[in-house]
């Protein structure tokens, strides 16, 4: 790249430059050089710090409560009671299976819906011309920063008027669209979908919805996958609203984990087994699709 050119300039640019170039050569500066062991060590510490608490949960989940009480620092080798503890969780008073099912239902429906409606709106905002477009788009961007969580009181009032409290639909409906999703898809389609493709489809006589379905949606796929993943993670981990509106009779997974803690607070092995079970699905998802999550965050950052 441009790094080899630096010494050349340095020779013609006076004393300070020569010194700098010399230092550059001697101390391995510049982004194309491999970093030293210090960098790897510090990054290694960061990664250990992100894994260790999770492993700690697994260690406690595979111990007995007695062992936990006797050993504040558990042995790094699991004690082998994991499946026993998990089955105790599944047979407890908390509806854990139901919670897993509920979490899957909510996460799948909201992800699919957010992706569909965001792509639809993003297609419209990025590629179609209509009155009030820029104003409405500014509105969408502004609303990404609105703390809508603070509207829980009226939202709860509405849900109980509809008779939806304790039902999954009360969690699903507020999650069907996000302002962030619309913004995200608009940004992506702006650059990823050429006007020529749309025009070609229109000239061929495709209606707007056909153009969307057969041209815009396939073009939006990479961004749609990422948006779907983030929505899934967000839905799977969300606690506040499901906790308020669902209650203990029909919990999602985080609510069930909270119930475990509240009910069996003395049985740490049991609680941690529940915690571990609730974490595992997303850890698997992370190993399958972690690259997309990384890429999604990094792309979103550059554009947003």
């Amino acid at each position, binding site marked *: 790249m441009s790094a080899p050119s*630096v010494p050349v300039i340095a020779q013609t640019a006076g004393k300070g430059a020569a010194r700098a170039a010399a230092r550059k050569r001697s101390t391995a500066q510049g982004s194309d*050089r491999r970093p030293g062991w210090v960098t790897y060590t510090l*990054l290694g510490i960061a990664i250990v710090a992100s894994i260790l608490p999770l492993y700690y949960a697994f260690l406690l989940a595979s111990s007995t409560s007695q062992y936990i009480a006797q050993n504040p620092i558990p042995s790094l080798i699991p004690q082998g009671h994991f499946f026993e503890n998990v089955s105790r969780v599944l047979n407890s008073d908390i509806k854990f299976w139901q919670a897993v099912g509920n979490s899957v239902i909510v996460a799948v429906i909201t992800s699919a819906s957010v992706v569909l409606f965001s792509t*639809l709106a993003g297609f419209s905002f990025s590629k179609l011309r209509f009155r009030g477009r820029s104003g409405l788009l500014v509105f969408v961007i502004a609303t990404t920063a609105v*703390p809508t969580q603070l509207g829980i009181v009226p939202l709860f009032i509405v849900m109980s008027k509809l008779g939806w409290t304790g039902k999954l639909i009360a969690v699903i409906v507020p999650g069907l669209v996000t302002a962030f999703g619309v913004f995200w898809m608009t940004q992506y389609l702006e650059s990823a979908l050429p006007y020529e493709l749309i025009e070609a489809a229109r000239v061929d006589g495709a209606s707007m919805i056909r153009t969307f379905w057969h041209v815009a949606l396939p073009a939006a796929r990479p961004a749609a996958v990422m948006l779907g993943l983030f929505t899934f993670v967000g839905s799977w981990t969300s*606690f506040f609203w499901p906790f308020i509106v669902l209650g203990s009779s029909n919990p999602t997974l985080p609510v069930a984990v909270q119930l475990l803690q509240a009910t069996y607070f003395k049985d740490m092995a049991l609680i*941690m087994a529940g915690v571990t079970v609730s974490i595992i699905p*997303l850890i698997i998802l992370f190993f399958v699709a972690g690259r997309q999550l*990384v890429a999604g965050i990094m792309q979103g*950052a550059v554009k947003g």
Partner: protein
Amino acid sequence: MATSTTPPRLDRRASSTPPRAPRRVGFSQTLGRWDVKVSPYLYISPFFILFALTGLFPLGYTAFVSMHQWHLIGGQGPFVGFENYAYILQEPNFWKSIRNTFSIFFLSTIPQLMVAIVLAAMLDANLRAKTFWRMGVLLPYVVAPVAVSLIFGRLFSDQFGIINTLLGYVGIDPIGWHSQPFPSHVAIASMVNFRWTGYNTLILLAAMQAIPRDLYEAAVIDGASRVRQFFSITIPMLRPTIIFVVITSTIGGLQIFDEPRLFDQLGQGGPSRQWMTTTMYIYEVGWGNQKSFGRAAAVAWILFLIIIVVGMINFSLTRRISTDNSSKSRKKVKR
């Protein structure tokens, strides 16, 4: 393209392309114009309708509810003006919750941002196995706050926790992570940091990679040290991203609920409410003993205004700090 359109088109071409029937053109043109005019609104309408109903309306209606007596079960009562606000503002627990929220917010945002910038700078180097390191720092993001809180609640346990045990080995007395206000804030902030540092690292990393490399080359020619480059180029060039990260963590951090709620099994923010945040207070007022939606809505509305104000302060503060730096560096680079 769809299979359904292909056969007729092939047929037409095969029969030496007869032009389309004129009457159909007329009709489809009207239809087409209508399609072009209405479709854009139709496609954005699901978002706007659903968002208005589940996001904006409740938020606005919060102000209305806060002006009324309103019971969780009994429903709407008489209009009381600002009585709910007056009541809330003289409640010591409300002020405690504000103190706790801000304390946890500062303890999480500032160290997290600093660590994230350093981590991002290290990830920005030409590492081997880049994806591995990036995924490694992001891992905690997929762990639910509820799970993080239970795990860290145990790590920070007052009697049998790993952290107090380890501190004991180096001769430090056990810290009352659950019994004293400030240590409990540190513990809760560490949960937030655990989950979000990696996420923000990647955002900052992306922004760092977008900095033109010739700026660094120019700095090298001017004899700037590595540290000087970091403070005079990297940080100012990250300005918009730092603002973005700070604003996002302001909005999220001031509404924190999950982590403090599960820090102990009672979920009330400690015996003397020493780690009860404002969102937890909303819950307590609305769904706890008082069951007063009017007062809960008043707290929610106050918190909403606080978030807006703090967001704006953050925005101008971050902008001013980094503008000073960047104007210096701009001069330097242009030279």
